[in-house]
């Protein structure tokens, strides 16, 4: 059972990370509109 719980946590974490990477507005480096304008 504890293994299943840890797997669920890992999967939720992985999905959250990928969504964050996809949707966030970069504040530095690649894709940072603000940096390009300043």
């Amino acid at each position, binding site marked *: 059972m504890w*293994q*299943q719980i*840890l*797997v669920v946590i*890992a*999967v939720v*974490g*992985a*999905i959250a*990370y*990928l969504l964050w*990477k*996809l949707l966030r507005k*970069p504040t530095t480096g*690649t*894709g*940072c*509109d603000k*940096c*390009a304008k300043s």
Partner: protein
Amino acid sequence: MAAKELSEVNSPPRIAIIGNPNVGKSTIFNYLTGLNQKTGNYPGVTVDKKTGVLQIQGENFEILDLPGTYSLFPNSEDEIIAHRVLNNPELEKRPDYVLMVIDSTQLSRGLFLATQLIDLGVNLTILLNMSDLAAAKNIEIRSFELFKQLGVPILQTDARNQKGLEPIKELIHQRNFSKAPQFVDILKVVPPSILDLVKEKFELENDYQAYQMIRFGAKDKAISEEKRNWLTQVLEENKFNLEEVQLEETKIRYKKITELLTKALTKKSSPKAKSSIDKVVLHPFFGYLVFIGVLLLIFQTLFSLASYPMDWIDGFFADVSGRVLATFPEGPLTRLLAEGVVPGIGGVVIFIPQIALLFGFLAILEDTGYMSRVVFLLDRWMRPFGLHGKSIVPLVSGVACAIPGVMAARNISNWKEKMITILVTPLMSCSARLPVYIILIGLSVPEEQVFGFINLQALSLLCLYLLGVFGVLGTAFLLKVILKTDEKSFLMTELPSYRIPRWKDVGITMFEKSKTFVFEAGKVILAISIVLWVLASYGPPSTMEEIRQQGIAQQEQATSPEQVELIEAETNSLLLENSFIGIMGRAIEPVIQPLGYDWKIGIALITSFAAREVFISTIATIYSIGGDLENDLTIREKLATQVNASTGDKTFTPATSYSLLVFYVFAMQCMSTLAVVKRETKGWKWPIIQTVYMTALAYLMAFITFQIFS
């Protein structure tokens, strides 16, 4: 100086580093700030301004590294950055002090910009860099004479060899910068009445600032519309010819610089030993031969040198998977680790040797000065295809990564040429394609020698890079016809002196690039591996349970251990096929079947849209699930032994592998590049067109390849 205060009261003093391209600004910036911004013996390395902090005896100074510019007459986006930072009175944080870096071997050209800065009234110090090269060329600079004539502090440095740099910190700490008397009297070329009007309107105190405002203010969108309109009206009313005035100013400035240099510079005749190298490497025939030879040498070394650590890493991760399964208690977490996480991480780490070597070679080519020769060499050849001059720099950068390549297109002033360059740069084979190339070439091309000394696999790799170049040329030609480029830009690059590469910097580049690859790409790859494992391990519960029960029933009827093993493998294969990812994969299979791919490869194509290198880890994860992990199969062995369930043939036949290789040569498959193209083109239109075009081209070329070889 502008009426507005130069910097905010509480912020640290701001020091801008400015100079012509490729004079060592970034090296000095790195020395002062302790940062590791990319440097190179290659014009156009810095295309955006960078900031860092210098701390001296508890006091902070903000250091600003500006892109290289030849004058305060901006011609391209990167030159506009320097112009704006120094000129725009509507920006609040302008630099308090300016460090002007000059290549000692190109004094006249450097002094053109330096004297413009003097006329602008900035607090200036001049660094005469590359003193070692000047000495090697028998150029003697009397810096005290220069100081007397110009009236600003002058230091001689050799930043590459870290000589003469310590006094810069002392100079900054003591704020030893000067506002020198005007070098060119701008009143000789611009009527005082106009200058006074502009000075009053924009609250400027300096004539040269007013002149800069007259010259560029009407086009600068950083200035309010009302003021731009006013300026346009004034210029029209006075029938002011901007180009003529600029030409006149340039003539006067160069005349005065020439007079100055007769007193401050002695150039003895120097032996021209090194130009004989250029006779070969820039030769219209032998030059290309040398270039192809250099590329072949790099690829041959990539295969031969990287194969040992690669095999070791591959074997290590296969062993870890087996150990995890054998040691940890049975359960989903253990399987996630053994089948998802470990193969996923292994799929990243295995490519560190190649990535490090590729970037090491690129750093050596840049640092020796050969890369600039390549730019010059390719320029002649690419013109018929609509790629002119400055397009070559982004394309050459694109071999490492398309992102800096696309950003380097800012150097190009002509909008259409810039668009063509941005759109074709991702077709150059970047380092992220290398893992895919290496694995698939290893699977499909025998390890044989051609002509007794050329490795066939290295030759195949070279052909893939050349195929990317052909893609660039063809697409550029197509765009040239569609976009109808009328204006033509020209290549103004310099051929820097040959140098021995700085091995420490090469080592740092290799380490930094490998680190970025592992930690940036690695995090995404790990997350995708976890999600993939779940999608590949679970499916509609009733179907999965039914398959399991059937497998158990068949195993009970089996008469030999071999039969049990076979039934187990078949059950695992059926479970994967009916998992969530199997359902998705089979849905897209009809689309990719003409290219020779099964649904598992289709899944890898989808996941690798985020980044190309994800392809290998996806394949590694999918083929691990339900496989025999205790046999410790490496990624390459797993791919080599895969069999297509429906046909019974090997999945990775030469035709499929070639088709996949060609697909990856042309496909976009990189979210970060898309983001940068969107930023550089200021909208989604071009990145969408680019992605659709590249995907369609990749599909078509992969289809043709598969049909030819199957």
